[in-house]
């Protein structure tokens, strides 16, 4: 591990002042960053510990619910307001990692997770994300876990978070603090597709720090579900996951929310499928068609063509099951 100076931050202004230095990185729970530092993939000179900054979950008239970036994953998933108003988010958080990791990992850190592509972790392999311009060994390598949507010849890595898939479906906003003040970024715009610069994963600017996640109220909470397909039944990253929510009036779809995990460099909001479904009938045929339309632009690699069919069926089946849940209580 590269040597670093440890700086605990007492409050946000102190954190931002410390985080402005060259070579500084913010440390939350550390469950991803410490691992990457041990592999010398991350080599910060200064670690600014932001784990003691206030992390509350509060109701807000304008935004619905505000979740502080420092809130631990377990605390967010267990919170009464989250469980009742955004059960999809609780479910997605609980689908990720293990009890031990969720107790430590923060909500902000979950958003900032880096890919679990094995070539990114292996410093004997070529990786454009680790070393821009080096090339990518995953494109022609073992790429069963890799992206089918929005990838580029430079990078086919996937975003590992479950929580962010639910946040994408729920239309969440990321509030960041920085040297030039506060700004709000829709979660669907926060993470980037790889293009030619896969080392740039988010729109965060140097020194900026995630302050909170803002969740707008929605009509799909009562009919929502996070489903994750993986190689074992627990404690594994997604091959494909789907966050889905439906609001029905009779058999007509008033609102639908769909996002996919395990398929792209970012949590993939399925806007094409949503547009195809909105205002139409909630039938298995409509679900299948919409899912197929979303996956029409998918480009498989050697080992991951199965994800196209899997994602299509997972979307259609999850939506169909949601139509079978009992009429939400008013």
């Amino acid at each position, binding site marked *: *591990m590269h*040597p*670093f*100076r*440890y700086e605990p931050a007492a409050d946000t202004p102190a954190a931002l002042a410390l985080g402005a230095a060259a070579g500084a990185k913010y*440390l939350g729970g*550390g*469950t991803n960053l*410490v*691992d990457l*530092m*041990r592999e010398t993939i991350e080599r910060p000179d200064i*670690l600014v*510990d932001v*784990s003691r900054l206030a992390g509350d979950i509060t109701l807000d008239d304008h935004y619905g619910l505000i979740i502080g970036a420092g809130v631990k994953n*377990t605390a967010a*998933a*267990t919170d009464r307001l989250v*469980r*009742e108003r955004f*059960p999809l988010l*609780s*479910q997605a958080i*609980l*689908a990720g*990692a*293990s*009890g*031990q*990791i969720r*107790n*430590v990992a923060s909500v902000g850190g979950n958003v900032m997770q880096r890919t679990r592509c094995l070539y990114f972790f292996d410093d004997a392999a070529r990786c454009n994300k680790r070393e821009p311009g080096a090339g990518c060994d995953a494109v022609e390598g073992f790429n069963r876990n890799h992206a089918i949507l929005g990838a580029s010849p430079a990078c086919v890595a996937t975003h590992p978070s479950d929580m962010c898939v639910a946040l994408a479906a729920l239309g969440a906003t990321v509030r960041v603090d920085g040297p030039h003040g506060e700004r709000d970024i829709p979660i669907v715009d926060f993470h980037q597709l790889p293009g030619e610069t896969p080392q740039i994963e988010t729109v965060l600017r140097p020194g900026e720090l995630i302050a909170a996640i803002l969740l707008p109220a929605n009509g799909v909470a009562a009919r929502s579900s996070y489903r*994750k397909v993986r190689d074992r*039944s*627990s*404690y594994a990253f997604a091959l494909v996951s789907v966050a889905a929510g439906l609001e029905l009036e009779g058999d007509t779809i008033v609102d639908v929310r769909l996002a996919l995990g395990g398929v792209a460099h970012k949590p993939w909001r399925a806007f094409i499928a949503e547009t195809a479904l909105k205002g139409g009938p909630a039938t298995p045929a409509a679900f299948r068609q919409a899912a197929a339309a979303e996956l029409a632009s998918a480009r498989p690699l050697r080992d991951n063509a199965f994800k196209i069919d899997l994602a299509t069926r997972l979307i259609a089946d999850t939506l169909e099951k949601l139509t079978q849940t009992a009429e939400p209580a008013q």
Partner: protein
Amino acid sequence: MRFNINGQPMEADVDTRTSLLDLLREHLELFGTKKGCNQGACGACTVLVDGQRINSCLALAVQYQDREIITIEGLGAPGSLHPLQAAFVEHDGFQCGYCTPGQICSAVGMADELARGVPSYVTADIAAEAIDVTDEELRERMSGNLCRCGAYNGIIDAIRETLAQAASADVKREAA
């Protein structure tokens, strides 16, 4: 740096890079906590911090000063086993024993999560106040602890029995 481990104040002269796991094993000679994968995948290094289970391999020791750390040595000792330790012996909850300290610390933390109503991915009603403690729930909640000997059935038996005993003790206490 100063630490509070198993109720004792302890001091160690360590680098900021030292993990909590290496602090325990290499500097404080608390060898009960085990190093398996050293990357958060196996759970052998699980300890309790302020009552919550964490992977000590992914924790920088410097972040855990002034926290209440409990390791397997703080849960029980020969002659005064923690109920879970006794149940692991009774139900063959291990073979080689390497994952066992992590399994037991994890199960202690998990029991507290159940008592606090923390839901899991397999909880049918995510908003329910109380958790129905099925074997499926226990297996999901213990999935962060691998056992390469495959003693999972014994581990689940030991945990289930210990939880049931604790629940019946609670009922008796309330009745008295």
